[in-house]
């Protein structure tokens, strides 16, 4: 139970209607989209409406030694919003205004609670897009996606969230409000603080305003799907496309298990005997699209792929339906879905896929893998049952092996889902002791009381 006086202060700071304190409702701020997280109930959840209110909440919490857990839509996959050890969940959902759309500067400024899709809808009339498109583009907040540095399907050509964030307003641990960066393309004033807070997973401060770069919407696009009977052939096709110096907007791969699940679920017309399917989309000026599409088609065929093209938007939707069905199709197979995001250099993607399949066989697990072949980011999706402890033990072993394999190939623990709680114990594997210590020093310097999102990213000290 929370101290009555502290509650009253919080209510004064953000308004009574924006403080949640009933036990029944607090249960709902204990989780995000990550499976197997410890049940941790906050003492209160607040939904402030301005940076000043955020600062007030931060001050109240610091004085009363309560942790602050920033939260957007709670769709992250690394336990980033789990309020470990209690404290106050600070949800940005009611700070959801688009503050400015500035087409001349190709920039937009938003509050953190704006849903990514809404920014795109607002930019569309100006012929502009905000390219980062995680699978949760219709639900995730700008704040959450900046704090996770989300990726998405278009990473190869368009990069990830950090490539678009140019300015931030942040409430720091002492309750002060700082601004870093702005609308300008160039800015080398002091350290690159914008990048530090982008991907910090809410451990260094609360983001209260975000300025991003927008880019012109591509004039045209074309999609093609190719199925391969050999995994290696799909890998060869990816490499050949890059060697031809074509940078598709997306290059998605589905493995055999995923193809089968998609066919059973959506009857998308994928060949069941295929070992892999590649879905490639090129975009840009119409002439360029025509040229690039022709080259990609030729390469896909020469690599042994069976082609399916999309002549119009309807056919394009049909091709993409198969890709969109991947997660739903897999998720229905078993009660629990563990969605990983092992990432390797692009050239090792097939090797990684094969390694995951081998891990699945050795641990007798059902793993479907799909992902962004263009940027080396794979989503091994383990279908399992949280209630089956023996099986979960095997899942944990498999996850560990997937990480070790990715790192051995020069990859990373997480391409886009973040470290949070779920992967913090693996951090030393990638960063080593020196790296972990450096991260810890940054955290201590900016948040000496360990006020923001304690227990995330960094493994607990002995």
């Amino acid at each position, binding site marked *: 139970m929370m101290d009555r006086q502290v509650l009253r202060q919080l209510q004064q700071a953000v308004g009574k209607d924006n403080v*949640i304190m*009933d*036990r*029944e*409702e607090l*249960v*709902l*701020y204990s*989780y*995000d*989209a*990550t*499976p197997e997280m410890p*049940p941790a109930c906050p003492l209160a959840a607040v*939904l402030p409406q301005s940076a000043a209110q955020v600062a007030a909440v931060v001050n109240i919490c610091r004085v009363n030694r309560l942790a602050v857990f920033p939260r957007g*839509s*709670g*769709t992250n996959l690394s336990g980033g919003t789990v309020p470990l050890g209690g404290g106050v969940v600070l*949800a940005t*959902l*009611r700070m*959801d205004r688009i503050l400015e759309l500035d087409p001349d500067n190709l920039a937009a400024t938003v509050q953190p*609670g704006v*849903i990514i*899709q809404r920014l795109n809808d607002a930019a569309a009339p100006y012929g502009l897009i905000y390219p980062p498109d995680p699978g*949760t583009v*219709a*639900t*995730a907040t700008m704040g959450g996606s900046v704090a996770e540095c989300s990726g998405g399907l278009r990473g190869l050509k368009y990069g990830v969230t950090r490539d678009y964030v140019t300015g931030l307003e942040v409430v720091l641990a002492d309750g002060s409000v700082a601004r870093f960066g702005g609308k300008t393309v160039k800015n080398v004033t002091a350290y690159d603080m914008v990048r530090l807070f982008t991907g910090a997973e809410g451990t260094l401060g609360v983001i209260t305003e975000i300025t991003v770069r927008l880019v012109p919407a591509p004039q045209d696009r074309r999609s093609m799907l190719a199925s391969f009977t050999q995994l290696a052939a799909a890998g060869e096709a990816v490499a050949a496309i890059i060697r031809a110096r074509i940078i598709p907007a997306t290059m998605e791969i589905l493995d055999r298990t995923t193809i089968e699940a998609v066919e059973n679920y959506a009857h998308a017309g994928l060949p069941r005997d295929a070992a892999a399917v590649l879905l490639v989309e090129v975009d840009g000026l119409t002439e360029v699209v025509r040229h690039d599409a022709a080259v990609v088609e030729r390469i896909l065929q020469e690599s042994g792929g069976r082609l399916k093209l999309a002549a119009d938007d309807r056919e394009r939707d049909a091709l993409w339906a198969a890709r969109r069905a991947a*997660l*739903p199709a897999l*998720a*229905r197979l078993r*009660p*629990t*879905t563990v969605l990983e995001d092992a990432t390797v250099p692009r050239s090792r993607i097939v090797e990684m896929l094969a390694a995951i399949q081998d891990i699945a066989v050795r641990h007798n697990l059902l793993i479907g893998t799909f992902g962004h072949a263009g940027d080396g980011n794979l989503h091994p999706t383990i279908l399992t049952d*949280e*209630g089956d402890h023996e099986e979960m033990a095997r899942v944990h072993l498999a996850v560990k092996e997937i990480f070790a394999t990715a790192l051995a190939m020069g990859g990373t623990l997480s391409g886009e889902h973040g470290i949070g709680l779920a992967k913090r114990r693996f951090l030393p594997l990638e960063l080593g002791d020196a790296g972990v210590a450096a991260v810890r020093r940054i955290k201590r310097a900016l948040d000496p009381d360990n006020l923001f999102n304690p227990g995330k990213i960094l493994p607990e000290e002995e």
Partner: protein
Amino acid sequence: MYDDLADFTADIKKCMRCGNCQAVCPVYGVTRAEADVARGKLQLGRALLEGRLEPTPRLSALSQRCLLCLACLDACPSGVATCAGIVALRAAARKGGGLPLARRMLLAGLARKPWLDRGLPVARRAQKAAFHPAGGGYRPRFPLGLDVRRIYPALPARTFLAGIRDLVQPPRADLRVAFFAGCMANYVYPGTGEAVVKLLASRRAGVVLPAAQHCCGYPLLALGDPATARAMAASHVAMFHRLGVDFLVTACGTCGEAWREHYPELLRDDQELYDRSLALATKVRDIASLLAELPAPGAMLPLPWRVTYHQACHLGRGMRVGDIPVDLIKAVPGIDFAPLADPGRCCGGAGSFQLFYSELSRAIAAPKLADIRNTGATVLVTGCGACRNQLEGLLAGEGWPGRVMHTAELLALTTP
């Protein structure tokens, strides 16, 4: 089913908390409170099952804040039976008390047909006393817990079923159709019932109207009273099973869904009733779907109107009538059809939801009202009396000059 939350353990566990339902939930869209979206509701259910929560009045109140609009069901990648789970959560949460008096009275009233039948004249007199006549209906004179900014429909002098014979037999009948009128057509919009009978008779269908039929029971199920809903399902299945009809027609998606989906689920434990409910379920058609299956009776009278169409949740995502009603409307000579940008978005009415959460309901309806106005249509058609009630009231309250009518009423006007 529905009586024991434990029956939904598998569904609740299947929710991977991805949050996809947030994108489509009209309640969450307004409040941005996790308790208001399917993910939150299912996690409340999970906490209850795991003993982290007990049934309390607060839990019950949270469980009620849902339109049962089925949007999350369509959006859920894991295929979770979201709405059925929420209904079961309501039943479980109610055990800790906390259903407000007004809702308990509604439950009691709906369960007893004679109360409703006798209540109608009383309600009519009360309406005259407590409401100003306004916009073709009534506006509350004082709040009464109702929304004073909207218009409530004038109640009819007598129910639809009281005004019609048990069997309407055209001179040459090729088939027999039972009509399940439902509460809205019986008590509030008898014109809808009359239109359905006229349309069927014009297609050479004999229409059977059992006078003892009452509420389909879904409102009770939805408020968390599966036991009474089951009794109502049993009485209806017994009543309609005997009729030996070719089709069972409804003019409300919720009634149709009750017959198709919920009656069999509710009656699962009684083999005979269960089998009969399944047999009847295959005969259920929304009036628009049946009209599309039957040969048209000849030339239609033209209607020189600009018309738009709102898709009721339980017709569209529930009974899956698809484009059938729209195609029927478009086929009427003279009609200039102007589609809504988002026809399937819930109107926020959701049965009694608009009564008990009028502010929230109005906020949910706002984009729908703007969508309707933007079409420039002067006639709004919908296949559900509850949606009609909600939209008619709110649009008239805003001074919108157009008319709202049921699909059957529009089509009946084209039938000589």
